[in-house]
């Protein structure tokens, strides 16, 4: 499999005999199953992931298939869940822990930042925590602030963690495989509003999406539109709208935040001279601040306009105004227009 195929699966024209079209949540479910099949060290647990199959049904059928020893419900405590994953990983398992909503990582925060993120470093590599924390994140489901937040920036600011967020079934499979097979703790954010909305082809064969490689969703010459996770379909819509006006937008899906694909982003912006970064997390100290910083630091002279951002507002996530809070295609187009007219 070439790098191009890996990066632009939806554009791939090569016939993969067993390719199927599935949605993002199916990609998650079947990849967990495949990894459990492949490696008996993989165990899956969290709140209601067993008989119930998870509140989004991401783990539906897995307890039936692999038994309650390998797939089980835990007490209602995120510190227990994350902490248990750390201990299991140290003792040689490959735990996949689910946090029911990313908004509920809070009670497990110290376990994530003090134990998972630091045990390799502080022990000089004597003890390590290869583990995956899967969790649905992002807004757009009218869930109020506790079922809509995008806390990824906290974790990208925590050295020792790897942080990824797919927006397609292909990437969900490829990134989740990398996560489970890797040697580091990974926070795997699942953009919940794409669980069923994001459909796409996945090949039948085993492949991985390496961390730190962005996907160019469409090539363009006038502006680099960069995002990740739940906002990606809106980036595509915005790019469509702009294409209709004759503007050629390059759309990049970061997929992996730590590490992120600096080279691809910079070479794109060098080409287009303009960048708009889109995320739904609150603006102050968000991850895109780092991307913007690096762009202006590294390719300053290529910029024909300031780097633009569309992000969440610096307010708690609201309920009634759920949709207004989120960046949508219009707001993204407006930001692009500002950059284009600069």
């Amino acid at each position, binding site marked *: 499999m070439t790098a191009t195929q890996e990066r632009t699966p939806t554009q791939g024209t090569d016939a993969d005999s067993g390719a199927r079209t599935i949605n993002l949540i199916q990609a998650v479910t079947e990849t967990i199953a495949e990894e459990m099949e492949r490696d008996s060290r993989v165990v899956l647990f969290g709140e209601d992931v067993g008989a119930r199959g998870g509140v989004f049904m991401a783990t539906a059928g897995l307890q039936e298939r692999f038994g309650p020893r390998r797939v089980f419900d835990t007490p209602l405590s995120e510190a227990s869940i994350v902490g248990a994953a750390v201990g299991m990983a140290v003792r040689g398992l490959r735990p996949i822990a689910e946090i029911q909503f990313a908004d509920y990582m809070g009670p497990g925060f110290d376990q994530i930042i003090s134990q998972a993120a630091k045990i390799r470093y502080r022990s000089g590599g004597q003890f390590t925590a290869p583990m995956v924390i899967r969790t649905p994140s992002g807004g757009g489901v009218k869930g109020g602030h506790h079922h809509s937040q995008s806390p990824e920036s906290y974790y990208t600011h925590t050295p020792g963690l790897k942080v990824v967020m797919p927006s397609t079934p292909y990437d969900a499979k490829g990134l989740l495989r990398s996560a489970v097979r890797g040697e580091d703790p990974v926070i795997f954010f699942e953009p919940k509003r794409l669980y069923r909305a994001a459909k796409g082809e996945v090949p039948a064969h085993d492949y991985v999406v390496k961390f730190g490689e962005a996907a160019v969703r469409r090539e363009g010459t006038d502006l680099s539109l960069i995002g990740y996770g739940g906002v990606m379909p809106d980036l595509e819509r915005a790019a469509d709208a702009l294409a209709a006006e004759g503007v050629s937008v390059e759309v990049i899906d970061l997929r992996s935040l730590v590490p992120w694909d600096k080279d691809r982003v910079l070479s794109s912006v060098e080409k287009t001279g303009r960048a708009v970064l889109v995320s739904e997390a609150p603006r102050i100290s968000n991850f895109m601040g780092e991307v913007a910083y690096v762009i202006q630091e590294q390719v300053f002279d290529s910029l024909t306009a300031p780097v633009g951002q569309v992000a969440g507002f*610096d307010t708690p996530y609201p309920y009634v105004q759920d949709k207004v*809070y989120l960046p949508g295609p219009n707001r993204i187009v407006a930001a692009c227009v500002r950059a284009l007219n600069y």
Partner: protein
Amino acid sequence: MIQPFTPEPIRFVAEDGTPVQPLPARFTPELLRELHALMLRAREFDRKLITLLRQGRTTFYAQSSGMEATQVGLARSIRVGHDWVWPYYRDHTLGLAMGVPMAELLSQCLGTNSDSSRGRQMPHHFAAQAQNFVSISSSIASQVPPAAGNAMAQKYLGVDELTVCTFGDGATSEGDWHAGLNMAGAAKAPAMFVCENNQWAISTSIREQTASETIHIKAKAYGMPGYYVDGNDIVAVMEVCAYVADQIRAGHGPALVECLTYRVGSHSNADADAEKHYRTREEVEEWLGRDPITRVEKLLEHLGHPVSAEERAALIAQTHREVDEQVLKAEATGQPDWRIMFEDVYADLPGHLRDQEAFLRAEQTGQNGQGGRA
């Protein structure tokens, strides 16, 4: 005499409605009828909300059907508007019985302009200042340490109040639950912690939740008494809660009360179809047979003051009317617009939010050339 740490739940009225110990004098037929009406009203509110959900007029609901004796009993054991309550998301029956206006609850569920929480929280997460009913947070057990602090403040201020904190059985596994109870214990703060043990946390049974035999026994870890109550027996709930409240007011420090009950409905609308995967219909039926409202009806019958079918129907009809009226009234106030996003983040509006508000105003009023909703 009410005792902590009993091996069996404290009970006054058997499932068939006959008293298993002398009925305290205050439980006159009048009081029992009043309690019955409160329970029935809450039950019907549950039903009506399910209808509103089906109609797409609200998006989330967590029934408390089956748990009415616990919540009404608790509401009637404290001094509303004087004592403080840090509740959880399944407490609408508690709110209603405390006199939070139905209009308030419905407005919050519908997210209308009449919602005192300004449409910012998901449905069923209401707040009521007049009743000292503190705004509900979804984050399980996160209300417990603040409740301890609230009680510490009451002690500091020397006021004659207590703080009630409610939570489910699942909540007791969270670190914050432990932190809150331990803090309250160490501070000897006037807090009453009430576990609404409905035996399930979504699909996780109390047996998977903890190896502890019961919830109330956990009080030992905090040096406070733990009471074990039949949460479907409103007489027992009121007798225990009133006794415990008195003890706390007398300065004996915090206590934990476990009300053993059952959630007969689904966890929430999101869970409705999933139930079959984790619990048997038989179990639900068994608990439907222990219905707390039926129990009061049987008791009233036993006492010679039955609630007639007509009375019952009238109560139900009245609630339906009330809900229908209040829904229309609430909906007529419209939905809060984008402006509510920037208010109440802080007491003031700092510069960055002023900028963001201006940006959104321009967008929403079409002044930035894009207009309309994103």
